[in-house]
């Protein structure tokens, strides 16, 4: 049982504060290296497809102060990457821990809470 401030992510020898589950506490700490480091810890290599999702999440967050609902995300992915990718199966392939949670973490956004 530890308090939140005791958790860090080491990126290029700089330690960034996270919560217990590895979500950045300060969004301003985010850089592409953060996402790469987090993904490496999960043994995931970030491809262009991963980056598209991360970017969509961040754009939406800038506008609405929250990650987009899964439907909005799939639709946006569809618009950018083609209709065959406009579904959650595609997103789950990219982010098997759940697109909302895992991708939000890589994107430096807080974890969506609730019955999700």
């Amino acid at each position: 049982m530890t308090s939140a401030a005791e958790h860090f992510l080491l990126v290029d020898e700089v330690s960034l504060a996270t919560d217990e589950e590895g979500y950045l506490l300060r969004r301003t700490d985010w850089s592409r290296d953060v996402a790469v480091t987090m993904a490496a810890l999960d043994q995931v290599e970030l491809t262009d497809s991963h980056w598209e999702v991360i970017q969509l999440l961040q754009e939406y967050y800038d506008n609405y102060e929250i990650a987009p609902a899964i439907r909005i995300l799939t639709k946006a992915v569809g618009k950018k990457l083609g209709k065959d990718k406009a579904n959650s199966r595609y997103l789950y392939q990219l982010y098997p821990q759940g697109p909302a949670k895992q991708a939000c973490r890589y994107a430096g956004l807080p974890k969506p809470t609730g019955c999700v």
Partner: protein
Amino acid sequence: MILKPDAMAHSKPHLASAEQQETLGFAPTLSDNWHSEAIELLGEKVSESRALRVAMDACMKCGACTDKCHYFLGTDDPNNMPVARQDLMRSVYQRHYTFTGKYLPWLVGAKELDEDMLDRWYTYFHQCSQCRRCSVYCPVGIDTSEVSMAGRDILASIGMGQKYVNQIIGKVNSKGNNLGLPGPALADTLLGLEEDVLEETGLPVRFPLDDSSAELLLVAPSADFFAEPHVDGLIGYAKVLHQAGISWTLSTHASEAANFGLFVGSEPHTKTMASRIRDAALQLGVKRLVFGECGHAWRVAQNFLPDWVDLDFLDAAYPRPQHIAEVTHELWKTGRIQFDPSKNAERTVTFHDSCNVARATTLGNTRNGHFTVPRDLLKASCDNFVEMSRATTHQSTFCCGGGGGLLTDELLELRIKGATPRMNALAQVVKEHQVTHMVAMCAICKSQFSTVFPEFDLSFDAVLSLHQVLGDALVMGSVR
């Protein structure tokens, strides 16, 4: 079965931060006086709640409940036997509030609330999903959920709140829903859904928000806006209401049906959150109050809300909160909507009774309506309906494994193990009847199943919202 004592002693949710504690009016951290504070609170709680008093006094240790909890069945940890969970509190209660416990503690197993016991409280009161399956089998009807709720409230009050639940209560208070979804994001999400449904059906099905001309306020769990398969259920509600020509609206202020105050056993928080719904209904001037597919929300709406707030402004024909399944059932029964089961021909479905609906509420006006209403609707909209083993459905339904404030990632091991009894029953009908989907009508159940299904060789999308199946089969357009 070989018992594995303390096999799950490592499984506990993250503690709330001092800030999250203070926002809710709880002690930021344990004070030097935590012991006496806890003992005093325990005494108060027992003297204020008959259910808790019976739980402390009436257990004869008959063992009837010992093999009924999904967490015990899934973990083999005897601390997860309901009686053992109650004993965590009972032994402390006896030590401080009964003659034998005070003077002959060894005789009755009375124990002190020391640091080890406090840790056990935090661990094992957070391994109860408050589903009340054990209560069904208890000869004296002891309600373990009342014990774990009281235990969690004491823990939170003395400085050991749970992060996940605290955070969510805070977000409802500040933003109106569990997710912290702000108004503009909600409006944008709903607009997107209108586009989707227009594309799919060619019909202008609306998802109105804060429409003060509406007669019906729908209060859905916020997961319905955000996650799958929840959102498909929301689309189903909208299609049904559209087809029936009912003017309805959602509310930004009450954009959450769920009430996590219940999980932490804090009546003030539960009441405050429930009051938001009444305030929104009054503000919008609606005449009907309807709840979406959320198990414990329905428990709160049906059993507590009418006692807590004045609902006199509701239409005399619908004086109490209703469940969307009741509304749909009535529309279908009276012929105002119809289903075409051929639309679901590809699916073979089974139904998971959600614990709170199955054991705490009713639907419609009949004794077993909470079992028959969803099944009637499913059978009308899908020709291939299969029941799981009777020992795991209806009143004996197994919890999904994620209820009662445990739907958080750090408890994933517990959630997977706790889902096992339900998964075994499902696996059987998948094997014998080629069931393709399990249908649920609770946001927590849906999220839990889509998370744990892959652990049991099922696809995450093999769980469906009840109103998704209904919406897909709904005959739309001018049919009358």
